[in-house]
């Protein structure tokens, strides 16, 4: 088979690019799987497009809708996956989405102690710190001290609930609606919601008097 007939899964812009050992391993596995007909030639590329289409703006839409529509919030808390579908957000195979509501008395924090399970359907891929040992180990042991390192001070009279995700069960935090947002449209509300607030490592601050402007 000539060089031009190979299935190249990606092209690097620069001719002098030199991949490392593990990248060569990754390329080799993917090419062998394609050659053996186990996966399609363009599936990895298509999946990269899917990965690129998932980002925290989707989670922010869910949160903003829940803040604006009490019935939607009920449905979201009852079955996250179904509520996502209402907004046209699809889930991954076999993954359940549990949405955890922050209240006056409970603050939720999400972790995956075993690896890096994350609500990818609505947040995209997790940040590095979420996948690294210190976060995973400490979130379940001393969440209050860990949250302080994010600048998040949770008073002692507020309980911290830590939820440990698995391959099948993913969690998303529904943050509390910031004060001063009564007249906000759903779109304006969504612009306030950050990725980290939906992991539970930060709280959303109240909004100053200019409507629609995030602090």
């Amino acid at each position, binding site marked *: 088979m000539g060089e031009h007939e190979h299935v190249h899964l990606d092209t690097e812009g620069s001719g002098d690019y030199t991949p490392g050992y593990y990248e*060569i391993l990754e*390329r080799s*596995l993917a*090419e062998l799987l394609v050659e053996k007909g186990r996966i399609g030639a363009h599936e990895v590329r298509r999946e990269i497009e899917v*990965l690129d289409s998932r980002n925290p703006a989707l989670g922010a839409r869910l949160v903003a809708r829940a803040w604006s529509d009490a019935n939607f919030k009920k449905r979201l808390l009852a079955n996250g996956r179904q509520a996502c579908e209402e907004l046209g957000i699809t889930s991954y*195979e076999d993954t359940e989405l549990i949405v955890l509501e922050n209240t006056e008395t409970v603050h939720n924090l999400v972790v995956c102690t075993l690896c890096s399970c994350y609500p990818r359907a609505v947040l995209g891929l997790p940040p590095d710190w979420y*996948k690294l040992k210190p976060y*995973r180990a400490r979130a379940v042991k001393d969440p209050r001290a860990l949250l302080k390192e994010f600048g998040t001070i949770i008073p002692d009279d507020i309980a911290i609930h830590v939820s*440990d995700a698995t391959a099948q069960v993913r969690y998303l935090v529904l943050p509390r609606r910031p004060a001063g947002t009564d007249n906000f449209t759903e779109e304006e509300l969504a612009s306030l919601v950050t990725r980290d607030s939906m992991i539970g490592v930060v709280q959303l601050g109240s909004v100053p008097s200019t409507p629609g402007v995030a602090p």
Partner: protein
Amino acid sequence: MSGDNRDAADWLPNDLGGIATAPFERVEHPMLPWEKRCHALADVLDSHKIISTEEKRRSVEALGEATINKLSYYERWAVGFANLLFAKRIITPEELALKMSEVKARFSITET
């Protein structure tokens, strides 16, 4: 509870809940193109029921703590995939070695 008092033999390297670790740092880096491909490959393997998320996690655990600590996140995945594909007899080590030489040659990497 001290984080150091558990019997290492009873724990898998991925089971980190509650252990003592290095200080927390809020690190993030944009994904490299090959890392994103590696992630996409995992999803494709899962959708074809070739390698599930749980199998992938166990394959990383099986690398042992020393190797896990030496490799980056997606490096572990790539090695885990290779081991699983060998075990499932989908790819042989010989085929992989040949293919890796071919890919290296394409990038003009000299064999060492």
